[in-house]
């Protein structure tokens, strides 16, 4: 499968994603500079990695959303191609309206760099099919603006269409205020678009794709995406 990993000025998880996809998962992965106006031919999945694109100027992700490559990403998403935004990538997708909602400053204003637990809310999505029902994953977060917010009518749509795919929880899978690191609405850690081909998530699966780096829970999501692409 072919992955395109976008690079903006200030991206800093681009090479982690390349390592996880290329070296660990043994897929074809290519870095794509944001000024390019097209994706490599045959791209199956676009990964929008973490970092501080454009120094987080104005709002996180707001400037990157207007980079030339994003037009090609919108077209790829419109055709049903997979798009996967991680951390700053999630913020970029939210600013692009590819996924609903916005990421606000963390409730307690601190930059959070820690492991969290997230619960997989549905298995019938392109990014979670390899998970067990209700599986709890231990994944790292590293963000200052991960406090998911949307208007009540948007939240209702998210719930009605089962777009909430990951929720912050404790080790036992209980989603509560105590297990919510950043104040995110409804403990939301990851959401899909209505069609289910675009995912935005705050935790970093690429940082836990092999045991030597402290965990393999992130692999579940990579394996899911591969399954989804293989069975298309």
């Amino acid at each position, binding site marked *: 499968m072919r992955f395109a990993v976008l690079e903006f000025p200030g991206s800093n998880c681009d090479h982690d994603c390349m390592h996880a996809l290329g070296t660990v998962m043994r897929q074809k992965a290519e870095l794509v500079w944001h000024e390019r106006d097209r994706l490599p031919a045959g791209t199956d999945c676009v990964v929008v990695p973490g970092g501080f694109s454009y120094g987080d100027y104005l*709002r996180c992700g707001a400037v990157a959303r207007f980079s030339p490559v994003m037009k090609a990403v919108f077209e790829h998403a419109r055709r049903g191609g997979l798009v996967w935004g991680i951390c700053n990538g999630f913020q970029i997708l939210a600013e692009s309206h590819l996924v609903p*909602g916005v990421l606000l400053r*963390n*409730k*307690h204003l601190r930059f959070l760099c820690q492991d969290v637990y997230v619960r997989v809310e549905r298995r019938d999505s392109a990014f979670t099919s390899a998970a067990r029902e209700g599986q709890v994953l231990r994944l790292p977060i590293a963000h200052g603006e991960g406090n998911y917010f949307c208007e009540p009518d948007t939240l209702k749509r998210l719930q009605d269409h089962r777009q909430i795919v990951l929720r912050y929880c404790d080790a036992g899978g209980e989603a509560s205020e105590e297990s919510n690191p950043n*104040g995110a609405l409804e403990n939301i850690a990851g959401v899909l678009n209505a069609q289910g081909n675009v995912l935005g998530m705050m935790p970093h699966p690429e940082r836990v794709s092999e045991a030597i780096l402290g965990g393999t829970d992130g692999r579940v999501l990579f394996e899911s995406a591969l399954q989804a692409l293989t069975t298309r």
Partner: protein
Amino acid sequence: MYLAKIHVTLKPSVLDPQGVAVGAALRHMGYKEVAGLRQGKYLELRLEDKGLTLEKAKARVEQMCAKLLANTQIERYEFSLKKAPKA
């Protein structure tokens, strides 16, 4: 030259933890009358006026605010626009 002075603020329904923290700091300093503080952004935008009426410029600034300068899911904006001397 036109000069637009733009204020972007969080909607009242959106929590502003930075504003809360700064307001609390003022109270700790002894300004007990501080009842609330909301933090926002102020932008000054200069526009070439060649071939651009004030009316048209207003519409353009409106677009710029809605498309990039504010995220209207969480923020509101307001601006004034005037003829201004070259900087």
